[in-house]
């Protein structure tokens, strides 16, 4: 039961749900949630391959960096969201059509 395939399927489900969240939601924060899911799906794949296919820990390193990048992305993304909300009073993604304030 615990095999590479099961991890890959879990990761696939995570990815697809993340994608669907990104597409279905019009709220920027919700889209960021979807991105987090997608990043996690990728990280899980790396670790699973690291255990089942390769015998080194490079997959771990990669998923660590994914976590780091996700954290940075979340911080900057949410800062932008808050700034956007200050200006537009909304976080509807289709309102974000201007590159300047």
């Amino acid at each position, binding site marked *: 039961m*615990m095999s*590479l*395939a*099961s991890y890959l399927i*879990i990761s*696939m*489900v*995570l*990815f*697809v*749900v993340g*994608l*669907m*969240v990104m*597409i*279905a*939601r*019009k*709220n920027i*924060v*919700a889209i*960021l*949630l979807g991105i*987090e*899911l997608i990043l*996690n799906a990728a*990280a*899980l794949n790396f*670790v699973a391959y*690291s*255990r*089942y*296919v390769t*015998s080194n*820990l*490079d997959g*771990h*390193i990669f*998923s*660590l*960096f994914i*976590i*780091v*990048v*996700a*954290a940075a*992305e*979340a*911080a900057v993304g*949410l800062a*932008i969201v*808050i*700034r956007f*909300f*200050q200006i537009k*009073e*909304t*976080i*509807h*993604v289709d309102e974000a059509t201007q590159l300047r304030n």
Partner: protein
Amino acid sequence: MFLQFLFISSAILTLACTVAVLVTKNLMHSCVFLLGTLVGMAGLYATLGADFVAVTQIMVYMGGVVILMLFAVMLTGGKDFVSRAQNLLGLPASMGNKWTYSMGIFVGVVFILTNVKLLSSIIKTTPTKTIGNDFPSTVTQLGHLLVKDHVLAFEISSVLLLGALVGAAIIARPRKQN
């Protein structure tokens, strides 16, 4: 047995919470379910013997990202947020409508089909090792890898984090009203 119990419970937690993230109409609940997903992911990492990654996952996501998300939801909920606390439902358009959901489901189906095509061949062809139930500690090895083989990426990520810290602070700082 213990391991399998952990795996099954983590997988169920992950998948259930993931689906809940998608279907719930309340953004706050979405965030909390995301938390559940991430904790479940940590459990999955643990079953893969990635103890350090698992704990890092908990540390970063639970202590940082999810709380940030919650803050963002609160701060962008609207001026009269308190009076319509969970009526993020009151903003149905921003949480998606039938059209967007059907689009999402369509894309999801396409992606799953695609992925199944990929996975079916990959799982067949990828040689997998037989692995025992031993879980050597990865902390020391990861430390060596980080400061030897991957030191450049490590340093760059530290610069990235610094940049994100400063950038986020500058972007989100309150402007003078004039």
